[in-house]
C-alpha cells in the first residue's frame, strides 16, 4: 500500500471566535485527483493554505511526503506547485521577468513547457513584456497557472484556478490539466465552484462542511449511490441506511438524502414514495446546506 502524499490529522483552525477547521482528518494518495467542494466561506482556501503550511494550525498536524509541513525541505518544496485564489504575482514585473525570477528559485524548470503554454494561452511578445498589473484578471490567473506548472510539480494544489477564466480559458486549462498534468501521474488537489469542470477532471470529490470533510469518495460512486427519497412521513419515519439529510415539507411529506444506502429499491415500490437519482449540483446543495 502506498503512503499518503498529504496526511492531515485532527487539524483545527480558528479566526477569532469562528471555527473554520474543526478536527479535520484528510489524506491524499499519490496520483489522486481530488476536487474540494464547499460553500463560500466554508474554509476551502484556509484548508489548502494549512495543508501547505502557509497558515499555522491551532491543533493537529500535516505531513507532506512524510515531512512536517512547517519544516519542508528544499527537495519537497520543489515537488509542490501552488496556484493561490488571488493571483499575487509581483505585479510590478512583466510576465517574462516574473517567470525568470521564479526560475532562479527552482532547481528544475521546464522552459520549453513555459514557452509552449505562453504561446498557446495567448501571451504574445507584447503581453509578455507588459507589467503584470496591466493584465486582466483572467490573464493573471493563466500566468499564475503557468508559473505553478513550470517546474513540473508532482503535487499540484489549485485554489479556484478557473474562477476568473472565460469558457475558452477554462477549456484550455482543463485540457492542459488532463493531458499535461494528470496523465503524468501528478497528484492534484483543487477547489472550485464550477461543477461541470469537476465532472470532467476530478476522479475524487471531497465536500467541506462545518470544518470537516463531510463526504468523500470517487465521483462516479458518489453519483451512483446518491438518492433523494420523497414520501409520506409514516413510511419514512425511521432513519434510512446512508442517510445524509432529512427535511420535512409543509404538506407533511419527508425528503431524505441518502448515499450508498441499500434497500431503497423495495422502499421505492411503496405507494407515494419516489426514489430519485441526484446530479452533482443536487448533491453539492444537499451535502453542503
Amino acid at each position: 500500500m502506498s503512503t499518503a502524499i498529504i496526511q492531515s490529522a485532527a487539524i483545527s483552525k480558528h479566526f477569532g471566535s469562528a471555527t473554520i477547521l474543526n478536527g479535520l482528518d484528510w489524506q491524499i494518495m499519490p496520483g489522486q485527483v481530488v476536487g474540494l467542494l464547499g460553500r463560500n466561506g466554508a474554509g476551502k482556501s484556509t484548508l489548502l493554505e494549512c495543508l501547505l503550511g502557509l497558515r499555522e494550525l491551532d491543533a493537529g498536524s500535516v505531513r507532506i511526503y512524510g515531512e512536517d509541513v512547517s519544516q519542508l525541505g528544499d527537495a519537497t518544496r520543489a515537488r509542490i506547485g501552488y496556484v493561490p485564489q488571488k493571483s499575487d504575482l509581483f505585479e510590478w514585473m512583466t510576465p517574462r521577468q516574473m517567470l525568470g525570477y521564479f526560475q532562479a528559485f527552482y532547481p528544475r524548470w521546464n522552459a520549453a513547457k513555459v514557452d509552449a503554454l505562453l504561446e498557446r494561452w495567448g501571451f504574445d511578445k507584447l503581453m509578455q513584456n507588459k507589467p503584470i498589473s496591466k493584465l486582466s484578471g483572467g490573464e493573471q490567473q493563466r500566468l499564475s497557472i503557468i508559473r505553478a506548472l513550470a517546474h513540473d510539480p508532482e503535487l499540484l494544489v489549485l485554489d479556484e484556478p478557473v474562477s476568473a477564466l472565460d469558457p475558452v480559458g477554462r477549456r484550455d486549462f482543463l485540457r492542459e490539466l488532463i493531458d499535461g498534468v494528470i496523465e503524468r501521474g501528478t497528484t492534484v488537489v483543487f477547489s472550485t465552484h464550477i461543477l461541470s469542470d469537476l465532472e470532467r477532471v476530478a476522479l475524487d470529490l471531497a465536500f467541506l462542511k462545518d470544518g470537516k470533510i463531510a463526504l468523500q469518495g470517487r465521483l462516479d460512486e458518489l453519483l451512483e449511490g446518491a438518492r433523494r427519497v420523497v414520501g409520506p412521513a409514516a413510511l419514512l419515519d425511521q432513519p434510512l441506511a446512508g442517510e445524509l439529510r432529512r427535511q420535512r415539507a409543509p404538506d407533511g411529506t419527508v425528503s431524505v438524502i441518502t448515499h450508498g444506502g441499500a434497500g431503497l429499491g423495495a422502499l421505492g415500490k411503496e405507494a407515494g414514495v419516489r426514489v430519485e437519482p441526484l446530479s452533482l449540483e443536487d448533491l453539492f446543495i444537499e451535502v453542503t446546506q
Partner: protein
Amino acid sequence: MKTPLKDYWLVWRMAISARSRADLFVLGMTAFFSLVVGALVMLKKDDALLAASMALRTAVGGAMLGWMLYFVPGAVKLNSPINARLVPRLRRRLIESTALAWVCVVGFATLMSADTQLAPALVLLATGTWVAAYGLGQSGHPAGSWLQVAFAAVFFFNRRIPPALIDSLAGGAGFAIAFLLMLAFAAYALQHMFMHGGERHYAAREAQALQLERTSVEGQFKERKPGRFDAGLYRWVLARDSAARNSARLLVHLLGARNHWTNRALTLATILALAALALLVLRHYASAETVQMTRDIGWMFATPLLLGAMFDTEKRNVRLKETAGEQALLRLAPPLPAGAPAFNRKVAVTLLRTALLEWAMLAGAVLCAGVMTGASAASLFMQACLCCLTLPLVAAALRDHAHRSGLLGWRLLLGLIVSVSLSLGLGLVLERAAGLPFTAGAALVSIALTAALIARGFQRAQTAPYAFPAGRLA
C-alpha cells in the same frame, strides 16, 4: 426632514465614511482646539467676547479642514462612473453640497479678513481659487496640484508681485474679471471632480484612485509606477539577480521596483547632481557673503535628508504588508531555509542589509553635500555623528512580521526620539567623564544602541512564527 436635506445628510455621511471614524475625529479635534483657543485667549486678554469669537473661528476653521481632508476625497470616491450615472440625484447633491461648502469657506475667509490689513476682495479671489485648485487636485488632475504649488510660491514671493497688479485686482473691473475667471475655474473643477460617467470618467478614475490613496499615510508608501529610466535600471538589476540565483538578492525584489535600493541610489545621485549645479550657479552669481554663508552652514540643509531613513523604514513595512500573497509563493520556493528560525534569520539578514545599505547611502549623500558646500572638517565630522543618531532606525526592520505588519507610525517616531535623547544624554555624560567630544560620544552610544537592538531583533526572529506571509497572525 425635507428630501434635499435628507440627501445632503446622506451624501455627507457616505462621503466621510470612506475614512473610518472621520466624523468623530473631526468633531473631537475641532471641539478640543476651539476650547483650548477660547481658554487661552480668555487667560491672556480677559475678554469673553474675543475668546468666544476666537473659539468660533477655530471651530469653523476645524470644520472646514475636516470638510477638505475628509469630505472632498470621499465625495470624489463616491462619484464612481457607475454611481454618477445610475444613482438618482447623487452626483447633483455632491456638486451642490461641495459648491455650498466652497461658498461658506470663501465667505468665512472674506469676513475674517475684514478687520485685517488684507483686502477682502483679494482674500475672496485667493481663497476661492485655492479651494477650487484643491478640489481639482483631489480629483487627480495634475493642474490642481501644480496650482497649489504656485499658491505656495505666491505666499513666499508675494513681494515680487507688482503692486499695480494687486491694486487692479482689489476692485473695479479687474476684480470683476478675476471673479468671473474664478467662477469659471471653480465650475471646471467641480465638473472634473464629479464627472458624469462615460469613457472620460473611467479614464480619469485611475488618477483619482491614486490621489485618494495619497490622502492616507499608508497610501503614501504604496508602489507607484516606475519612470522609464527607473524601469530600465530595475529590468537590468532583476535580470542580473535572477541570473545569479542568489536567494538573498532575490528576496529584496519583494519590496517592489520603486523601492529597490538601486532606485534610492538613483534618486540620491540626481539630488546631488542638482545640488552641485545649484552650488555652481551660486558660486558664480551670488555675493561673497552668501558664498561664505553656504560654506559655514550650507551642510545643515542636507541634514533633513536623514529623515529619509524613517520613510525608508515605513516604506519597507508597508511593502511587506502589501506583498503577503507573493510571500506565500516564496515560502514554497526551494532554496529558502526550512523551519521558522532559519527562514526568519534569512529574512532578517536580507532586510537588515537593505536597511543598512539605504542608511549608508543617505548618510553618504548628506556628507557628500557637506563636502560640496565646502564645509570644514569639523562640520563634516559633526554631520557624520548626526547621521549615526538615525542608525537605530535600521533595527526596525527586525520585527515579528507574522504578528505585526504595516506602518509603525508614531511608534517609529517615538522610538527615534527616545534613542536620540538617550544618545545625546549619554554623549553628554561621556563628554564630562572621559572628555570625548559630545557629538562623537552620542554617535558611539547610538551605534551601541543599534547593535543591542539588532541583537534583540535577531533573538526575537528565532522564536517568532514564519515571517511570511507577513501580517497573517495580526
